Structures are given as C-alpha cells and as structure tokens.
C-alpha cells in the first residue's frame, strides 16, 4: 500500500504524455478520479493507468492486423498459419492476459474494503440531500447535513442508507462509489490522505433533481478536524432573532439544535453558516445565494420538497436570512 497520491499524480502526467491524442485535458479537478487524494482512489487510478497502457497496446495490434490484412497485404497467409493466429491471439493470449489482470485487480478488493473503523459516519440519502451523522466515542451523535469533513490520514467508515429511493455516494477523489438502498445498510471505508476541498455527488439516478445532489468534502489535518467536530457538537449560538424563522414554519422541517426548531424533515441547520455550500452542493454559501435559495428554491432545484418563500415580505425574509447568517 505504498501508493501515495503524489506518485499517482506523476503517473497521471506520464499517462498524459503517452496518450496525448487521447486525453484532451488534464486529469485534475475537485471531483477527479485521476487526481486522487485518498488511498482507494490512488490504487484505482494506478490500476487504470496500467490497464490503459495494456489496452492501447492490444488495440494497436488488433486493429493494425485487421487494417494490414484488409488493405496492404499482398501475399495471403496459409490456412494453417491463420488457424494458429486464431488460437494464439484469439484464445490463448486473452486468457493469459485476463487471468493476470484479474489476479492483479481483485487483489485490491480486500484492501479497498477492509474494516478498521477509526471514525464512523452515518450518511442517509434523501431526495435530494444528505443527512450526515458523526458517531463519536460513547455513541455521541452529531448531526449535520450536506457537507462531509474527514481527517487526513485516518480511515473513516461511512455507513450508508436511504429513506426514499436508491442513491449512490461517490467522492471520486477519495475512492469508488457505494449505493444507498432503502432497507439496507452499506459500508464504505475511505482513507483520505491529502488535505483539500473535494466534491461528492449522487451517482444513481434518483429523480428530478438528481443532477443537483452533491456535497463538498473537506479533508482536514486531523487536529483541525477534531477541533471542528467539537464545535459541531455544540448547540447553535444564534445571534439573530429567531421569531421570523419559527413563525414561517422553518422549524417544522429543520432543526437548529438548542432552539425550538426541531423539525427532522429537512437538513439540520445548526451550523449552517459555517458550511461552504448551500442546497446540497448547489451553490456557494454566500448571503446572496442564501436569499435566492430561500426565495426561489423550487426553480433553482426542481423537484425539491421545500417550498419557495419568495412571497414573504422583504423585512420578514431579511429577518430569516439574518438569523441564518448567525448560525455559525
């Protein structure tokens, strides 16, 4: 397991040079399986480059032989030579190559899905957002939503389920995906290595707003993560006036821990303003976007269950937004 993300990135560059015509742009990006930031993703990226090189070679040989035979060959080969070609190139060679590949590839499986839970996080998918609960020592449960933070260098076990339809959790920079199926609990172990900001998405079609079901993933130095989790565990310390928030029924769906808002239908908003994105990765969490979201959510995220509050008097909306702003 000596694969480090840095080495993999060098491989990516090497791969780029090799397949210059094939790869039209770089491998990078906040959501790229070719720019790994975790052990699982790095192993798989390595596997990909090995397979790509092999595939390129096989493709060139097969297509080369066919084009040569079809266009340039002047002297037909004998039937015996042809039958030998079928047997060796068509049957024996693929058998050997595939057997080798299978052993090499499946060897990764136990490594990738091994259990060593240092940190357990329950993620439950709902149309079209993520309920995220950190389970600490002594079964302390800290609920948040739509933003995943992980400590670098530590394994995290995600237990995944769904309350409505099938979803799938995919953070390409960290590892492969795992489906979230009603009635089942799946496990996914990730070992992030490189701190940074990445992005996860729902990979299984889950309805109208499937395309808009994402979340930011923040891989942090372990000490920062521990400090952050302590802050998350604390109840909200709202500075604004909660009257408008509660009067308009926001608390019926959303929880703000430590206040009268205890709804569990929608995402927990206890530390909303401290998150980097809004609406399950829909847009950056800025005051302006929060206003757009609350006023016009049905248009911004079609199919969502939250109604738009654009009909509220401006002062009322201002009060709600000021309250949200204070939920740090």
């Amino acid at each position, binding site marked *: 397991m000596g694969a480090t993300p840095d080495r993999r990135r060098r491989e990516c560059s090497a791969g780029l040079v090799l397949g210059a015509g094939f790869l039209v742009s770089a491998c990078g990006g906040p959501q790229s399986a070719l720019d790994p930031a975790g052990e699982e993703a790095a192993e798989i990226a390595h596997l990909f480059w090995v397979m790509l090189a092999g595939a390129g070679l096989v493709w060139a040989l097969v297509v080369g032989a066919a084009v040569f035979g079809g266009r340039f060959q002047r002297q037909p080969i004998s*039937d015996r030579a042809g039958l030998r070609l079928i047997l060796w190139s068509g049957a024996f060679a693929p058998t050997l190559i595939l057997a080798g590949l299978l052993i090499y590839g499946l060897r990764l499986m136990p490594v990738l899905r091994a259990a060593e839970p240092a940190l357990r996080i329950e993620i439950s998918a709902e149309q079209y957002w993520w309920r995220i609960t950190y389970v600490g020592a002594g079964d302390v449960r800290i609920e948040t939503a739509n933003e995943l933070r992980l400590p670098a260098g530590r394994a995290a076990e995600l237990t995944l389920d769904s309350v409505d339809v099938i979803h799938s959790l995919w953070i390409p920079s960290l590892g492969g995906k795992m489906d979230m199926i009603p009635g089942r609990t799946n496990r996914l172990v990730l070992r992030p290595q490189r701190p940074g900001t990445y992005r996860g998405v729902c990979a299984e079609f889950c309805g*109208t707003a499937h395309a808009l079901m994402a979340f930011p993933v923040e891989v942090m130095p372990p000490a920062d993560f521990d400090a952050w989790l302590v802050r998350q565990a604390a109840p909200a310390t709202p500075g604004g006036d909660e009257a408008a928030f509660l009067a308009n029924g926001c608390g019926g769906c959303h929880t703000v821990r430590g206040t009268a808002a205890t709804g569990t239908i929608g995402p927990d908003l206890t530390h909303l303003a401290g998150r980097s994105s809004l609406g399950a990765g829909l847009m950056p969490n800025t005051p302006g976007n929060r206003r757009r979201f609350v006023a016009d959510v049905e248009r911004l995220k079609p199919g969502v269950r939250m109604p738009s509050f654009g009909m509220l008097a401006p002062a009322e909306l201002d009060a709600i937004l000021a309250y949200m702003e204070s939920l740090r």
Partner: protein
Amino acid sequence: MTGSETDEDRKRREERELRAAWEVPTGWRYFSNVNNQIVGVWYTAASFFFFLFAGVLALIMRAQLAVPDNDLVPAGTYNQLYTLHGTMMMFLFAVPIFEAVAILILPQMLAARDLPFPRLSAFGFWCFLIGGVFVGGSILFDAAPDSGWFMYPPLATDTKQTGIGADIWLLGLSFIEIASIAAAVELIVGVLKCRPPGMRINLMPLYCWYVLIVGGMILFAFPPLIAGDILFEMQRLFDWPFFDVARGGDPVLWQHLFWIFGHPEVYIIFLPSIALLAMIVPTFAQRPILGYGWIVLAAVGTGFLSFGLWAHHMFTIGLPALSIGFFSAASEAVAIPTGVQIFVFVATLLAGRVIFAIPMLYATGALAIFTFGGLTGVMVALAPFDWQAHDSYFVVAHLHYTLIGGMFFPLIAGVYYFHPFITGRMLSERLGRWSFWLMFCGFNIAFLPMHITGLRGMPRRVYTYQEGLGWEGLNLVSTLGAFVMAAGILVLVVDVLRPGKPRAPRNPWNAGTLEWVAGDPSEPWGIRSVPLVSSRYPLWDQKNLIDDIDTGRFFLPGAPEGQRETMVTDVLDATPEQVLRVPGNSFKPMIAALLIGGSFIATTFHGWWLGLASGVAGVVAILVWLWTGTARIPEKPTTDAGMGIALPLYASGPTSVGWWAMFITMVGDGTAFLSLIFAYFYYWTVHAAFPPEGSALPDLALGMAAGIATLAAWALMLAARRLNATGRATATRLALALAALLALAGGGLLLAAPWNAGLSPTRHVYDAMVWVLAIWTALHNTAGALMQGYCLAGSLAGRLTATHDIDLRNVVLYWHFAALTMAATLAVLLLAPLTM
C-alpha cells in the same frame, strides 16, 4: 402436364404459377402482406425510423449539455429524453432490427420461399409498430417514462413521482417483448426446419448459426424481464409490495431480474451484427471463413457466458466479495470468445485477397471502435475500477463504443452489403465514404472525451452540471462530435432514399451464399427452385448452380395448385421431410395485433373493461386466424416435390414446424415461470423467515385438489391423443371435453387456495408472491382448456382426424408444460413453507 411441353414452355408455366401464388397485393390490400420480403422491409424501416427518433432525442440532450448550467430543456424533460433514448435504442431499434434483418434475409439464405409462419412475422411486426409508436410517441405528450431505461424501484414504482410514463414503459414494452419472442420462435424454427435439402447443420451460413444462438438467448433472456414487468406493474396498478421494503419487498430483486435480461440483451444486440460481418468478411476476402468451427463455438460460448455476468451491473450495491469476484471473472472471461470471433475475421482477411469495398470500410471501422469498447469493458469488469467508473460518463463512453462499434457500424456495413440484394440497386460509393468518415470521426469526437469526463467525476443521467469542475470543454467537444455523427447518418439516409440509384448486377460482390441467387427482386417467389446444397459456399463451389435454379431443375420449381409452398427438412441433416404450405396474405394478424395492443394500451390508462374486452377480442381474432389458416387438411397426402421425390403435405408431431414452435415457446414460457419462482426464493434468502411468522398459508386441501384435477386433465390429454390416433372420435371428444372442465376446475381450485386462507396480496410480499404464482398457473390452465376446446371443435368440424392431428399433438405438448407448471407451483406454495 402434357408430354409435348418443351423445357421453355415448362419454365414459363412454372414462373407463371409461382408469380400467381406469391403475388404482392396492391392498393390498401398491400398491408395485408405477410411475405418475409415485404414484412422484413417494413420491419427494418420502422426500427430504423425509431433509431432516428431516438437519435434526435440524443442530439437534444447533447445540446443541453454543451455548456454548463444550460436551461435549454428543463430537468423533467431531460429525464424523459434520456430514458426514452435508451429505451428506444434498446427495445425499438437494436433488438427489433436484428429480427427485421433476419426476417428479410434468412429465408433467401436458406433458399426457402418464406419463414414457416409468415403470419406470425406479420403479427410481430404490427405489435412492434403499435407498441413502438405508443412508447415513443409518449414524449410528444410530455408523458414519456422518466426514471431511466432500467426503471429502478422504489423511484419507478412510486406512482406519485413517476406518472403514466412508467406504465407506458412497462406495458408498451411487455407488448413488444411478446412480439420479439414470437419472432425468435419463428427464426429458430426457420433455421432448424426450413433449410434446403443437403444443407446439414454444419454447412449452414454463419449468419444462421448466429440467428439460432441469438433466438435461443432471446428465449431465455426476455422472460425474466417479462416476469419482472408483471411484478412491477402489479405494484404500480394494485399496490402489491414486491419492491416495497416496508412490506417485505426488496428493490434489489428488480435489479437482478432486469440485468438477467439486460446483460444477455447486450449480446443479443451484438451477435447478429457480428453475424453480418461473418457474411461480409469472407465475401470481400474472396475465400471461405477461416475457422468455421471456432467461430461457431465462440458464438455459442458468448451466448452461454452472457447469462452469467449480470451482476457486474450491480458491483456497487454492496454484494459480498465472493460474488463480486465471481462476476468479475465471468465478465472478463466473455472477452475470450469475443477475441476468437475477432481473430477469425482478422485471419480470414490475412488469408484472403481482400477487395476493400464500402462494406469493408464499415467493417474495419466497426472493429476499431468495438475493440476499444471491448478493452474498456475489460477495465470496468474489474470491480475495483468499476467502483469509480460505474454510473459515470466513462460507462456512457464504454457502452456506446461497444454498441456502435459492435452493432451499429456492422449493421451499416450490412446495409451497404445487402442493399443490392433487397432493392436491386447499388448505393453510392462516394456517399458511402462521406457517410463513413463523418460517422466515424463524429463518433470518436463525441465519445472518446467522455472517458475522461467520467473519470473526472461526471455522473450519468444529469441534466446539467456546474462550471468549474473541468467538464465544460470536454462536453462541448462531445456535443460537436454528436452533430458531426448525425450528419454522417443523414448522408446515409439520403443515399438510401435518393431515387435513380444504378441497377445492381446479379450477385454484385461475387458472394458464395444462396441469398445472392436472387435475381430481380421484383420477383416475389424468393427462389425459383430450391437447390440441393453440398457446400458452405454453394455459389462458389457448386458448378452451374444459378442456372439450374433458374431453369427449375431443383425442388419445388412450380406451384401447380396455386399454393405457397416451401421445403421442410430434418433438423440436423436437412433431409427433405415435408412440403409446407404456408398461409398467404391476410389482415388477421394486423387485426389481432391491434386488439391485443388495444388491451395493453387501455390497461395503461386504467380502462379495465375496455382492456379486457379488447384482450378477449384479440384472443378470438387469433383463434379465427388459426382456425382459418393453419392445420388445413390438404387435398392429397403427398405432392411431387421435384427431383423425382414425393413428399407429404401434412406433418404432425416432431417432424412438423408447429410442434417445434410450441416447444420453443413453452421453453420461453417456462423461463418466465422460473423467474417468478426465483423471485419467491430470493425473498426467502433475504428474510429471516419466509413465509413470515404468523402468516396464513394457502389452503392445503384446495391446493391438492387443484393438483389432482390438473393431473387428470393432463392424463386425459394423453388418452385423447391415443384415442384419436386409433380413430375413436367420440371417445376422443369426451376425453377432451372432460379434460377442459378439469383444467378449469384445477385453475379455480388453485385460486381458491390462497383466497380461502385469507392471503391478502397488499399486506406482505409473501401473500403477493403466492397470488402471482397461483394466477400465473391458473391462467395456464385456462389457456390449456381453451386449446382443448379448440381441438374438440376441430374434431367435430372434421379438421382433426386420426391422421391429421397436428393441433392435438401440439396441445399435448403444451399440457406437458402446463402440468409441470402446476406441479412446481404446488411444490412451492404448499411444500416449501413446511421445510422453511
């Protein structure tokens, strides 16, 4: 025949007779045509039209994805577009075009005048057209299915989230699947029984092998989906909880049933196109295929393996590591027979002197694209890599490389190759090149970047994406490529449709197989006389063959009684067995298709009574069609088949085509039934107790009574066959009547078993499963009773006699399966709970 008739007179008379017997009707009666040459063209044109329609849907999607945060089409519409694109390409193009092309070229390849059941071909076509227009047209009313062509529950079973579109998908496609199975039965029997004398099974053109294999695959692959559709629609219409976790259901069962169909489906699509290449490559290499035995073996191997790898579509559902390892290995293994098939072509090219005409250009392009798709397939077959690639654009790229390289390009090679055979005209070499390079470049520009897009994290089935994720440039390039490819397809369409194409010479490519005997395609008879075959490439190896065929020196040179006749031969050795009189043109298949289709469509819109009435009328129409068109007693027992042999005109039992069709149909039927049994035991494996604790069980006594009644009905059928064969008509009739009553009683008693015990199908999946099995079996008893009644009527009307008993023997065969179905159902419903 007078002794003074000269050879020239005889030839002219025979041609006149044949022309009269096979005449193509004109005016509105044209649509009553059932001959394979006409129906095949309709079928091909209709499925190609659906291809163009689905292609336009794809272009709209690509336009939407050209730039980030685009608002060209809203989310709901996009979801309909992608669902319908996949659905139509798979169900209305890729599979039907195989059947269409096979209906069109198979009989001529076998020197048969038609397929054994021409009216069944026509029925299949009309079902396909009606179902296709119903499913495809739904998008024009904003009512198309919108939860993906895979229709995963619980999203797709949720009637609040998915509207009428999901019902249109389920019922419309079930209807089309029935037509697909009908065509598969027809094609299998065609290959097995309608070969020309002398064409032993190891002399068949490779295309026929592929038709046989793919027909068999359809028979085992489609029924699980039909079983799944039944469960699915029962949940949507009546709230039976097959996929509802709260009441014991499991959404993953659908995934199993869908992919047990869905993965063989890929090879059902791929193999017929490889079959076209297997005809094209030897022709242009101007030599027989090298490794005939190898390629047949490899194709059979592919067919078998394709049923063992469905779970690789489910690597991310949390399967146990052992299952993943098994399905990974099986998925890799399928590359081996595929490799053999590819290298058979490569070796044939290397060992021949190749003429590089347009079909070869497409074949080479196909190989380049398909090999790439195959290699990315090897990648995604490895589970760890699939965890990244699954449901991303990498898989979109992979599947289009395999399908466009493995299916579409070979098909277009086939269009250029067979066009002169079908129309008597040549397509343009110049337009062919334009079309090829536009399609080839456009395709690669569109789909090559998608590998990267996917690995950079873009999931499938998203109607939009944000800026800044590194997907903008790649998507724009893909969109441009898609339109370039569309331009290539447009050039192809122009080439096919343009008037004034030059006349093709006979056998323009100097091919070696029998379809190229066809001269002027305006002659409706298929082949002038049915030759005696002694080679895999008779046109190359058998001297003077075309001339002998044309002058009528072989079998069935004329049609003295004005009947449509074709040869039926033995399954393995192709020794002549019968001269089969195939029925002529009729509107009855169309009417039956309209009525049955009407019943499906009415059910979609919850028009229960209309649906029932239309369905019953459809069954009546089919009975009328059978009564008037099949099992007719000929005016003489044998006829002069030519070449000095006389053959019977009537056959029953295993020598007859009808018996084989019944057998094959019941194998498919049995597969659907086994899929339901699989569902029952699947629930047993996922539940700690199944039946659940405290659940009522079906009434044992009633169930046993149902079994005894059905067994008695089956035994009486055996007796009826014996009695009839010994000429005891009255006893036969009594046995049939009693058997029908017992069959109905057996069905009724079986339904009473869960009813009496108070099993409520909406309570728990156990109850629902019991009811589904009971209804399935009771319906089989009812259909069996109907058949017994049909035989009884036949006996009374004098069309079923001691020597002419094909209907009776087919119904006995049906009853073997029906009795087995009842026995298995009772074992599962009554005995299995005792052991659990």
